[in-house]
């Protein structure tokens, strides 16, 4: 073998020794114009990890705030300081109940099916009835279940909200003052959901929607104070809650009739001008303006609430001979009031984001996208109850995976406004609904 052969052999073997693994070349996340030295998260239960109608440790871990904080750490921020609930506790709902999980339930007809059931007979009050405040290690997550906008300056909030009571410096401290004491350099504010939920979840029977003026004054007061020290921030609009599974799961025409039922109902209701047919029919609901019997068929655009007692529907003629009460229905008028008000609140929030030069998260758009359905890395997401993958079992608050998608909406808005490059989270890493 001569020299030339040797050279060619060398070339041949050198090719074989080439590195075989592709190298990772990702740009480092940057904070852009953000000052991440002190970040706080402000909102209601959605911010704090309330889900499956309860607050517990596992929910707090997967809260909107905690997921966001995890990504902020990638640009140099400290981990979130959260008023943790004991990890062994079953947790508690705003009404004192235990959170929900998916299990088997037997209905009045003896049919066993998958249904949300409570983790325990009652919630764990001890998980929230003691103060966890520590002056040396102030909380950065103010995700307070049930929190409304007009409560930021309410000096007796601690008395009515145990979730606030356990984390405040003293029972008389106003929430707004607690927040200002943090002297945050960046804040994220998602507030207003609870202000519209009470009306919506009561089927429009609780006239608790703030007036536009009230809302505007309270909102601007909060934003003005939070930005007074030059802090940057992100504001989030309020979603159209009527797109959530709590309001969209029970079909308006879920009354299924056979021949004999059709005859009976027609003989009863035909004089009022209501007609029934074989198969799917609209439920009967209470409406005092409808006729002297204050009863009419529900319209296709009107919504039945998840609070509707289904056993009464299945076994006790509710929605048929006994019309569904107002508290279980958002009728056309109520929906129009609700949506109109949310729209005007949101107009103001958008205006505030402009006035105070803050990032704006279009929660309303995000919740609409979920309602329309989308695919994310091979997973279909929608607002279908249980199977949609985004909402927790209460039909209102997002589950961990839904929160992760919501967090990505925040990250996109913040990156856009402040020229940062905070990476989004892999939402599929977070839990959806767990099945037995």
């Amino acid at each position, binding site marked *: 073998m001569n020299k030339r052969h040797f050279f060619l052999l060398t070339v041949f073997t050198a090719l074989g020794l080439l590195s075989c693994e592709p190298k990772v070349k990702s740009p480092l996340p940057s904070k852009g114009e953000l000052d991440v030295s002190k970040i706080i998260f402000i909102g209601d239960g959605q911010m704090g990890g309330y889900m499956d109608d309860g607050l517990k440790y596992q929910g707090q871990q997967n809260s909107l705030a905690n997921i966001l904080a995890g990504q902020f750490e990638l640009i140099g921020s400290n981990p979130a300081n959260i008023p943790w609930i004991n990890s062994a506790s079953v947790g508690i709902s705003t009404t004192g109940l235990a959170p929900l999980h998916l299990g088997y339930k037997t209905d009045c007809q003896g049919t066993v099916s998958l249904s949300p059931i409570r983790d325990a007979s009652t919630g764990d009050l001890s998980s929230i009835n003691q103060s966890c405040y520590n002056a040396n290690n102030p909380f950065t997550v103010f995700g307070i279940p049930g929190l409304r906008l007009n409560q930021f300056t309410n000096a007796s909030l601690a008395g009515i909200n145990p979730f606030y009571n356990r984390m405040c410096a003293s029972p008389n401290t106003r929430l707004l003052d607690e927040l200002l004491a943090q002297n945050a350099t960046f804040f994220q504010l998602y507030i207003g959901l609870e202000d519209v939920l009470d009306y919506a979840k009561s089927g429009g029977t609780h006239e608790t929607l703030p007036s536009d003026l009230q809302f505007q004054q309270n909102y601007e007061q909060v934003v003005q104070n939070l930005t007074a020290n030059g802090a940057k921030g992100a504001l989030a609009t309020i979603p159209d809650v009527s797109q959530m599974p709590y309001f969209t799961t029970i079909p308006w025409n879920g009354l299924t009739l056979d021949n004999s039922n059709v005859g009976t109902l027609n003989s009863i209701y035909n004089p009022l001008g209501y007609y029934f047919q074989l198969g799917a029919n609209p439920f009967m609901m209470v409406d005092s303006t409808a006729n002297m019997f204050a009863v009419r068929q529900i319209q296709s655009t009107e919504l039945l609430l998840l609070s509707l007692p289904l056993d009464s529907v299945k076994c006790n003629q509710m929605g048929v001979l006994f019309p569904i009460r107002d508290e279980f229905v958002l009728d056309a008028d109520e929906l129009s009031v609700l949506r109109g008000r949310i729209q005007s609140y949101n107009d103001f929030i958008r205006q505030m984001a402009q006035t105070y030069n803050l990032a704006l998260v279009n929660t309303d758009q995000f919740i609409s996208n979920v309602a329309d359905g989308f695919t994310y890395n*091979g997973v279909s997401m929608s607002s279908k109850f249980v199977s949609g993958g985004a909402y927790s079992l209460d039909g209102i608050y997002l589950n961990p995976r839904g929160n992760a998608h919501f967090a990505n909406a925040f990250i996109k808005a913040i990156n856009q406004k402040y020229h940062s490059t905070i990476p989004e989270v892999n939402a*599929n890493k977070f839990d959806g609904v767990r099945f037995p």
Partner: protein
Amino acid sequence: MKSFLNISCLSFVLAAALSSYAQGFQVNFQGQKQQGMGCAGTALNVDASSLFFNPGASAFANKSEVNLAGTPIFAHVLYTDSATQTSYRTQNPVGTPFSAYGLYRCKKSLEPLSFGLAIYTPFGSTVQWEPNWIGRFALTRLSLKAIFIQPTFSYRISERLGIGAGFVISKGSVNLQKDIPVQDSLGNYGHAELAGKAIGFGYNAGILYHVNERFSMGLTYRSKVSMSVDNGNATFTVPNALSSSFPNGTFSSQLPLPSVLTLGLSFSANKKWTFVLDLNRVNWKVYDTLAFDYAQNTSALSDTKSARNYESIFAFRGGAAYTASEKWTFRFGGGFGFSPVQSGFVTPETPDANRLYGTTGLSFRANEHFSFDASMYVTRMRRSDKNLETQLNGTFTSIALAPGISLNYRW
């Protein structure tokens, strides 16, 4: 009324994403000498591997010959998700394309005839992604195997013109796995495995024409082979509450392997240097939909049709051989192939891109009967895409290294 919690409302469509073989999984390792020259050699009769490259060229074989070869593929893919900037890797087992050729040169009055049997693996691959990777609900593992068995005859019409053709029986298997986004009470995700055996038929025909002493032309056509899976097994691991929505059962599917039309040229400059050039037209257009038909459908498990929309492509291959001595020959070459995968259709099983590659090779002739060949193939490619079906949005970077050897015996 309808029970709103009935699990029948679940609609986890198993959007099956079994893409089969892209250019990426078209395996062009059917002859070590050709591999050394950029995988070209349609216009040459190099050895018994011409039974694959051009059955017409085999008509010019002077001797009977047996040729055994293997080319392990070391392939690595890195995926970087654009939104999260997280990266994930494949953990592919070593690919094992092989070929075995036997050529019998007839004697005396039958002298223009030769018969051959070719066994080779022109398509196939195994892609295994790391556990819990971001695309786990699109694909976790895909293993495809296709072995072609090709009895062939060749006929030398004149000193210049040879023709040949073979019938192809293809036996194969497919195994596709992915996670299903449903979780049990412990948080474990569901899993789907589709496995089946496939069979298909085709042919391979070619002509070699020696224009003059130095210059030759070859033309081959390897037909489409439609691999059908008839009684595949679909196995689902899901939470108990959902087991009736994901019934284990059988499925059927079809995987078209495209036809390849090749025009080859060869030029012998002198005793030492030979140059070859191949132009391929691969009719990937046949692969426009991937459908799975489940024997038992439920609201959660419907038959799927995934658009693939592959485009037919050209590929160019070329190389040179340098005969250094009686015993030693050295080769080098390279090629370029366009990707059949259009934007919006790149999948984790075919992270395909326009591909540029380089090869090198050598032969050692021990004696009149025995000779050995070796080759090396290297490629690197990168493709960024957002898949329309799964919305997987990121960049695939692939590196593949394929060293091969063969053993030849002539008599």
